[in-house]
């Protein structure tokens, strides 16, 4: 367990940097909208959805209707449907922890867990999944709370630090590319997303992109 913790911690270091930075930004934004540290903690704990929490600050400030909140959340977070579909096998037969693993399946946790884990003994995998998920969650809460507490006190030019999560996704994408002979699925993901981005614009492209990706992957031959 101790060894697994070390491995999980090491693997989550990029997320630690990214979540503290982005959580911090969220805390500051929330505070400036008039909601203090309690709300930052509570939202990071229960919603645990990076970009959606930024959007939620705007919804809170404008006093949006609950229907608007539901629809907006659905649009922003629909990509999470895909994460579940590709974790069905990995999260099978791992007991009660499964509920928490599913609840905490963010973009970053998914990216860390969606690949095979040759460096983790098979029997330790469920613990590893749980540790990675809980560590990431705690980083996010910590970032949000610090941001709401000390946002205006700390002067540090952090412009651009959000790139850490982009860099994380790029390395995982590169690693997947290198460790697989077939690249059709990766190419479909990129091409479909770029096309939908051009057609639908940056606010609305994710759901069409998901539909195109799912359809193409379903109707392609076994070779994908």
């Amino acid at each position, binding site marked *: 367990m101790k060894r697994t913790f070390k491995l999980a911690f090491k693997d989550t270091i990029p997320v630690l940097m990214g979540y503290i930075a982005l959580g911090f930004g969220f805390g500051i934004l929330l505070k400036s909208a008039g909601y203090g540290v309690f709300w930052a903690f509570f939202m990071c704990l229960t919603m645990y959805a990076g970009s959606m929490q930024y959007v939620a600050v705007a919804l809170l400030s404008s006093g949006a209707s609950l229907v608007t909140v539901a629809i907006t959340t*659905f649009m922003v977070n629909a990509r999470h449907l*895909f994460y579940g579909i590709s974790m069905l096998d990995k999260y099978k037969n791992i007991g009660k922890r499964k509920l928490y693993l599913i609840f905490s399946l963010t973009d970053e946790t998914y990216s860390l867990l969606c690949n095979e884990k040759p460096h983790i003994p098979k029997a330790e995998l469920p613990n590893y999944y749980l540790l990675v998920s809980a560590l990431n969650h705690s980083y996010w809460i910590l970032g949000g709370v610090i941001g709401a507490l000390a946002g205006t006190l700390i002067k540090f030019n952090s412009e651009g630090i959000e790139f850490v999560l982009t860099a994380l996704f790029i390395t995982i994408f590169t690693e997947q590319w290198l460790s697989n002979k077939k690249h059709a*699925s990766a190419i479909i*993901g990129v091409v479909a997303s770029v096309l939908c981005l051009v057609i639908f614009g940056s606010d609305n492209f994710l759901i069409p992109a998901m539909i195109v990706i799912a359809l193409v992957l379903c109707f392609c031959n076994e070779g994908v």
Partner: protein
Amino acid sequence: MNNLHTWAIIAVSALVTALLRFLPFLMFSDSEKTPRIIKKLNKTLPFAVMGMLVVYCFKDINFLSYTSFLPALIAGALVVGLYLWKRNTLISIASGTVCYMLLVQLIF
């Protein structure tokens, strides 16, 4: 805005998020009955999804303005280049991020 509405907004948003995360597991809880097409997706999706997430990160870049796309392009290339060379996730991510921060803060 009253306190109750604040609670309600957070609750609805948290519930919809959780629902999206749980839905696939609720729909396909029995692997015997899971359609073959979903099982196939579950193998190929991670590759497509990572591609989608990379594009998602670059979605707000304006490719008509070089101050908007050059930092991301340079830092992104550095991340890939270093990874191909060293195969070390942390070196790639740390170098790429520092490079990006320097570019957007000092140069562009």
